[in-house]
């Protein structure tokens, strides 16, 4: 028994010695429960963004003229004290003459079962594949999981479609920032001297301008009649105009400290070219730090887009993003009487929170000196 015990012990230890850097990071990361949960939730959110046409019961532009500002539809699973398949009630809208507000009264006479893989409105998945199958829907009646907006459009469907812009703008923006940050930060750290001085002063300068006002002024200069895709890319460029600074700082710092390492000197002595040193020796040693700082910068971009669109300076309707959906909440009366227009806030918040958890977990995992 004792021999076997020892054997297991050694092989475990050997596994650690043999493991690559990435394996070590992954093992450490797996222990960080919040980060794993965050990874799952983000995965689900991006899945939603990818397949929003199928997952949403309606298209984002379908407006139900007679159903304006309808509160979220409750789903029932118990009928007459018995468990049944999920269904929703129909409802009547009437005026309450005491408060002079419209009231939505469920009508227990009308029951609409929720059908899965329901054939509803036709759509084109990714603009390519025509289909009319939705994940769920109801026949004859209507289902608004998060209520409807001022034009009677289903907020749930619109949030799913909005995810596409809101979630990807951070990724595209960060990709641009990453290129700029790696290039300029690397140049500053590797060349040093005047180049370093100029680039780093530039970073200091950009960082001292309050970002939101700068973003606001730049995006206000965008012509309003541009098509959605053009504005989308313009906004990502505006967002990454400041976003690269942090990445450049990290890259420069790592280059500076790695330059003095023995293994770099050794590589240089055996005659490696500059490019080989950069790609074979530098990059792998600080890639993990870059990933961490990328993860932690995505939320800023998402929040930036939300703020700009919320103020009406970013993307313009008919584009759909979470910030654009929130524009409705600017009207006090709308917000207090129909609080479900605030639901997009929740999605932005969850996304940002999950990126922060993920970044935190990655940071712990990537730091070889942490506990």
């Amino acid at each position: 028994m004792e021999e076997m015990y020892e054997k297991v012990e050694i092989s475990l230890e050997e596994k650690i010695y043999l493991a690559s850097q990435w394996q070590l990071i992954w093992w450490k990361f797996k222990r960080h429960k919040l980060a794993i949960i965050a990874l799952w939730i983000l995965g689900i959110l991006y899945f939603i963004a990818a397949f929003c046409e199928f997952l949403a019961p309606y298209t984002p532009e379908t407006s139900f003229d007679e159903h304006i500002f309808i509160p979220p539809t409750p789903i029932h699973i118990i009928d007459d004290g018995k468990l049944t398949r999920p269904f929703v009630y129909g409802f009547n809208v009437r005026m309450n003459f005491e408060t002079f507000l419209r009231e939505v009264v469920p009508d227990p006479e009308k029951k609409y079962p929720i059908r899965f893989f329901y054939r509803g409105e036709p759509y084109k998945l990714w603009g390519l594949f025509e289909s009319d199958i939705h994940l769920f829907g109801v026949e004859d009646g209507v289902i608004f999981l998060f209520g409807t907006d001022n034009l009677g459009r289903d907020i749930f469907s619109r949030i799913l479609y909005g995810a596409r812009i809101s979630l990807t703008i951070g990724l595209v923006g960060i990709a641009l920032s990453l290129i700029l940050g790696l290039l300029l930060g690397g140049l500053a750290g590797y060349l040093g001297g005047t180049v370093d001085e100029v680039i780093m002063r530039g970073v200091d300068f950009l960082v001292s301008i309050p970002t939101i006002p700068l973003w606001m002024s730049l995006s206000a200069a965008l012509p309003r009649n541009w098509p959605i895709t053009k504005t989308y890319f313009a906004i990502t460029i505006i967002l990454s105009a400041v976003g690269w600074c942090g990445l450049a700082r990290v890259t420069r710092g790592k280059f500076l400290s790695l330059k003095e390492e023995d293994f770099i000197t050794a590589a240089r002595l055996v005659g490696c070219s500059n490019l080989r040193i950069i790609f074979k020796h530098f990059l792998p040693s600080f890639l993990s730090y870059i990933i961490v700082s990328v993860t932690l910068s995505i939320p800023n971009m998402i929040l930036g887009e939300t703020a700009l669109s919320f103020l009406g300076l970013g993307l313009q309707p008919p584009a759909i993003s979470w910030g654009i959906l929130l524009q409705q909440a600017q009207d006090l009366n709308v917000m207090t009487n129909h609080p479900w227009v605030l639901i997009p806030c929740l999605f932005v918040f969850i996304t940002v929170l999950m990126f922060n958890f993920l970044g935190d977990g990655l940071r712990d995992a990537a730091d070889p000196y942490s506990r």
Partner: protein
Amino acid sequence: MSFKTYLIRRFLFMIPLLILISVVSFVIIQLPPGDFLTMYVLQLQSRGYKIAQEEVVRLRARYGLDRPLYLQYFIWIWNIIRYGDLGRSFAYDKPVGELIRERIMLSSFIAILSLLFSWGVGFFIGVYSATHQYSFGDYFFTFLGFIGMSLPGFFIALIVIFISLTYFNYNPMGLFSYEYLSVSWNIWKFLDMMKHIMVAVLALGIGGTASIIRIIRGCLLDELRKAYVITARAKGLSERKLLFKYPIRMAINPLLSTIGWLLPGIFSGEALASIVLNIPTTGPLFLEALMAQDMFLAGSFLLIISTLVIIGSLISDIILAWIDPRIRYG
């Protein structure tokens, strides 16, 4: 390096930054097509006014709009330095300086209050978290910190407005409640104003608090692991004295050194939260200016806000160098 040389160097370093910022602001003023005078004249004509041709020529010369672009920049700067004239807002038909002056005080007041709020709350929670590492309280505050980090100020403002309107039937928007609007200044009016400002301070301060907690906690934990703390403990110093004598003093440094990057964030958030809360600071004015392409107003706003941030970080650097000699000698 003596403290004096450090000060001089730091001041000299500020000048290129200010020049760059003025260039960026000027570029932003120039971004939309047409200059502001054509807009101004059009606006007056659309209202049915007639503007004398001599007046247009005079204004054109005053703001140098008939000169090449680089000269226009120098004229703009010269007008600012010589006359304190930032240009003219055509939407308000007033000098920009006059419009901004009223509001910049309120913006700075709110920004400073929320900085103090973040420091005060963040410092105490940070020290608690570090001294009670891995306790329930530590995890609780770390979690709260994450939530604070992920909630932008204008979300908090929206939520506060919603809650106070629906549950307390109280409108936190604007600078004063309705009943105080036309009352002359007295203590109650002041208190009412503070009540309204506090919402903005809270909305802005929470994000900053979260990052202060993280920094203080990390810094203090590093310090507590050092040998001198262990020595002091071994010699029988009380835990309280042990904590306050050196480690806390070390952990205060980042409070000051973070001003440089907290301030831009606070001014950013201030603009947004004030727009949502409809507080008459520079934020709503800036948004209006951008919407109306009132570019002298917008550009000057950016110039002033960035200058304030630079001055803020200058002050924090000076204080830091003053209390921590390692920085000026390092």
